[in-house]
Structures are given as C-alpha cells and as structure tokens.
C-alpha cells in the first residue's frame, strides 16, 4: 500500500513555503506590485491624456471608469503602491548598508544581516499596513 506522508505544514503551507524566509515573499511581492503599477501607469498616461479634449471628454471618460469594478482596480493600485513604496524605501536602506549591522567574525550564537535587519523589516511592513488601512477607510467612504 502506498504510504501517505503527513502534511507537515498544514494550511500554513498555502501561505508559506516552509523554509522560504519572509524576505523572499517581500521580493516576490515587490516584483508583482512593481509590474502592476507599471501596467496601470502606462494606461493612466493614455486615460489622463483625455483631458486635452476638455471638460466634456473628461467627464465621459470618467463616466466610463467610474463604475465599481474600476474603482476596485484603482484601490488595488493603492494597496500595491503602499507596499512597493514602503518596501522600496527599505530596500534602498539595505542597499546603502544601513541598519544591517557590521560584518564580523562568525561566532556562536550566529547572526546574519537579514536577521539583524528583521526588526526594521517588521516596522516597515506595519507602516505599509497602516497606509493600506487608511486608504481602505477612504475607499469605504468612496463606495458609500
């Protein structure tokens, strides 16, 4: 009979790849949000270009994009922006070598830059979450 292996990670396995650190998820999200914002931006340049047609053309354009699905799409851009901006600032700090500690002789208990940087990582993610919540509250009133 075929042996069944235990699902060690359980439902958490859907959310996390086990030994992938949270930095790895931040990397993937940074990429996805960057591409998403870029796609939006290119369409945005064309759409806001309708302003050259004056008030009438602008209003008919906004009437088209004013429906709830488009509003939800815009809100996704707000969420993507909040994450990409805050995480991007964190990456700039890392690339400048700030708050990752100094290199030293490896001695027990071992530590490494990602680990030393983790408290700051968490603080930045909390800031991103707060921005998303503020954007969400505004969005709630927009829909209401």
């Amino acid at each position, binding site marked *: 009979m075929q042996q069944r292996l235990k699902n060690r990670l359980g439902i958490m396995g859907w959310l996390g790849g086990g030994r992938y650190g949270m930095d790895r998820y931040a990397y993937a999200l940074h990429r996805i949000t960057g*591409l998403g914002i870029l796609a939006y931006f290119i369409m945005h340049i064309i759409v806001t270009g309708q302003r050259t047609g004056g008030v009438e053309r602008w209003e008919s354009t906004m009437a088209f994009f004013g429906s709830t699905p488009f509003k939800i799409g815009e809100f996704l851009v707000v969420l993507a922006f909040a994450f990409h901006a805050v995480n991007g600032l964190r990456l700039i700090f890392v690339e400048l070598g700030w708050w990752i500690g100094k290199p030293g002789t490896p001695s027990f208990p071992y530590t490494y830059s990602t680990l030393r940087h983790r408290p700051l990582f968490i603080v930045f993610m909390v800031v991103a979450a707060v921005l998303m919540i503020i954007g969400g509250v505004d969005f709630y009133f927009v829909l209401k």
Partner: protein
Amino acid sequence: MRESRLWFWHILSAAVILVLLGIHMGIMHLGELLHMAGIGSGDPVDSSQVFGRSRQAVFMITYILLLGAGLFHGLYGLRSMFFELSLSKSLEKLVGGVLAVAGIALFLYGSYVAIVVYQMNGV
C-alpha cells in the same frame, strides 16, 4: 560603468517618485477623509478639480518630473527582469531599445498633455 550608472538612476528615481507619487496618491485617494477633515471639496477626479489643478504650473512641472522618473524606474525595472533571463547580447540590445523607445514616446505624449492642459487655463 554604464550599468551601475543606470542602477543609480533607478534608485534615485525611486526617491523622487516616493515624494511626488506620495503627494499624488494623497490627493487622489484621501479625498474623502480630507474632505471630512474640512480640507478640499470631495471628489478629486471631478472636472472642476482636475482642470483647476492642471492650470497650475506647479502641477504641470511635477507631473512631467513624475512622468520621467516613473517611466524610467518602471521600465528599467522591467528591463532588469528580462536581463535576468540570460538573453543573448543582441536580444538584450533589442529589449533595451524597444523599452527605451516606448518610454520616450510615453514621456513625450504625457508631457505634451500636461503642457496643453496647462495652457487651456482651467477651461
């Protein structure tokens, strides 16, 4: 040398975008909350508001800056992703060229819009 210079611009443009887009998103997506706090007058995409901003030189100039910084940053980011795929040198050149042409075209169009709408002086 050229690659490290481009990368430096990628990081520098991020700092510029952080400020300009931060303000843009604040105007566009905190409108309701600001209105409740007594600032501004609600819907930021209402034509009176949109054309009221477009007639101001400060918006025209910062929009052109944001166009340049945003397009460079985003398209350079996309180019880096393509370059991670170990393309041949000639394919790399082609990708870089196509993205550069697309970026310049969008920049010119967006800047043209910002200037024309500025000159319409509010409609």
